[in-house]
């Protein structure tokens, strides 16, 4: 595009705008490339390109450094991971048999106890407990048989019946009658007291 130096700077802007709209010219190739780069590429891209250029321009950089920069540029972690993901989806590679065998053996070593039928501790030990109980019962039976008849067991007496039970000669019928009489007497006496009366012959001490 022509230069319009003879115009004032303010007018130049307007003229260039008009000229560009009416008859847009070709941009200088280098400038075009520079602007395109600026528009299309991020800072990261420019660094990448710089690395490529530097690597291919041994005049600017010693060859080793250039090679290192190229490697760094080409081994962009992000690109490598992305390329691997694409390959994995498009043409996945098999796991090596050795790696696979190791994975299986690790999983089984760690996981097999859980893979066994799950039974609680009580259920698992139930057969042993039953066997032990049976053995004990048999042993006790044999012991009692060998030892002979057991002595008569002493009858325990409830405290409420101790008074009556201590009377060895009293028959069950007489004891029952006596207890019933005593309780009926207590019942009457309590009723009298609730009426404010004192039964005759009992005295105030009761």
């Amino acid at each position: 595009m022509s230069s319009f130096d003879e115009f004032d700077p303010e007018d130049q802007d307007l003229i260039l705008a008009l000229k560009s709209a009416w008859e847009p010219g070709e941009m200088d190739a280098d400038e075009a490339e520079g602007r395109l780069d600026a528009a299309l590429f991020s800072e990261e891209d420019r660094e990448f390109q710089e690395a490529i250029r530097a690597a291919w321009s041994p005049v600017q950089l010693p060859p080793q450094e250039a090679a290192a920069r190229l490697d760094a540029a080409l081994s962009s972690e992000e690109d490598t991971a992305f390329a691997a993901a694409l390959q994995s989806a498009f043409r996945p590679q098999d796991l090596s048999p050795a790696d696979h065998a190791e994975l299986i053996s690790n999983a089984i070593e760690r996981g097999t106890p859980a893979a066994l039928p799950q039974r609680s501790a009580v259920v698992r030990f139930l057969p042993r407990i039953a066997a032990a109980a049976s053995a004990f019962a048999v042993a006790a039976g044999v012991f009692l048989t060998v030892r002979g008849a057991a002595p008569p067991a002493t009858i325990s007496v409830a405290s409420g019946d101790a008074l009556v039970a201590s009377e060895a000669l009293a028959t069950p019928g007489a004891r029952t009658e006596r207890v019933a009489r005593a309780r009926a007497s207590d019942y009457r006496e309590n009723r009298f007291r609730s009426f404010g009366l004192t039964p005759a012959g009992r005295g105030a001490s009761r």
Partner: protein
Amino acid sequence: MSDLDGEEALVEKARSGDRGALGSLLQHHGPRLYRAVLLPRLGSEAAARDALSETYAKVCANITKFTWQAKGFYPWLRVIALNTALDQLRGRKRTLLWSPEDVQTELDATNTATPLDAKLSEARDRAAAKERVTKALEKINERYAMAIRLRVLEERSREEVAATLDVTVATFDVVLHRALAALRKVLEGSKEGGER
């Protein structure tokens, strides 16, 4: 393992705690899980290997819960592997070809679709992965797509691809870098737009 009957017998043994039987099942199906399910979705060998290991651990822990089905053991393994991949993808800041939502959709489909046998399932998974890549490449500049296809997918040498594209090797490196950037942008855009 020649047929499903043999596999069923192995599964029964594995369920009763037979390590050898469980190992045989994993040995048989593991490579397929790795190449058809895990590696394409996770995108790196290391991640896929970790996921396979985790899948195996889950299988060992839950083998007693497995109920035999007509299509065999593989559909169950695939669901476990997909769940494992889903967990990994959810933990990532950036995803590329598969997002967690994509895998979740696949998992949902397994609940309603008729299970496939192992070979057919693998064929479908691999075809779907290729289609996903192809569709993404269709969305970028043809020259960029060719650079990626030849160098990355077909693994031709830089020199050969540069010659095919009629550029120097140095220029090709730049082109490839830009191509990858463009593809990444397309993929990220399609994720944001909810389409793939």
